[in-house]
């Protein structure tokens, strides 16, 4: 599936597309959620919410 379609499907709530995008950015989020080498779970959760907001707001 091309990336534009993946984003569009995720926007309308397709769970497969959303989880595919979450998997794609999981490493980045985990890396950013580390504070002094330890994962801050609250921050990680906030970052996943931000990713979801990005999917909705990204101008296509």
């Amino acid at each position, binding site marked *: 599936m091309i*990336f534009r379609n993946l984003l569009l499907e995720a926007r309308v709530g397709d769970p497969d597309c959303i989880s595919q995008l979450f998997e794609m950015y999981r490493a980045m989020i985990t890396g*950013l*959620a580390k504070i002094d080498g330890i994962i801050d779970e609250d921050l990680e959760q906030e970052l996943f919410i931000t990713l979801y907001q990005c999917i909705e707001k990204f101008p296509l």
Partner: protein
Amino acid sequence: MCPKQKSDTDLLRASFSKYVYTALCNKRNRYLSKKYRHDRELPAGCNEYEMTIDDYLSLLNSKSKLELQLADLYELKATLETLSQLEQEVIILKIFHGLKFHEIACLYGKNAKMAKNTYYRAIAKVRALYIERGGKA
């Protein structure tokens, strides 16, 4: 998928990755500022994500962790500025942010090998140019 379509997909993905990365970094900074607002010392690296390439280059001049003479720093700064935007960004993400190659690759919608190659190519360029300009290896 035709080559043009593939290229458009890659561009869109890279653009989305940068958008996501910026949003995540801003969120992280806001979260940490709120969490540690009563502490004088923030955890290492929490303010670094909103810095630009120019800020990093000026940081090299002002408080580099490297034990280099000022003249060497100017040489190093000039050398870094000769690199392409991508090479500068990869070096900054790798060295200053400590991101792994697969995380950098994710930002640009490429594979980890591309990030690794770009990083080592840039380092080799910096080393060669820096020595050529008269700096110590």
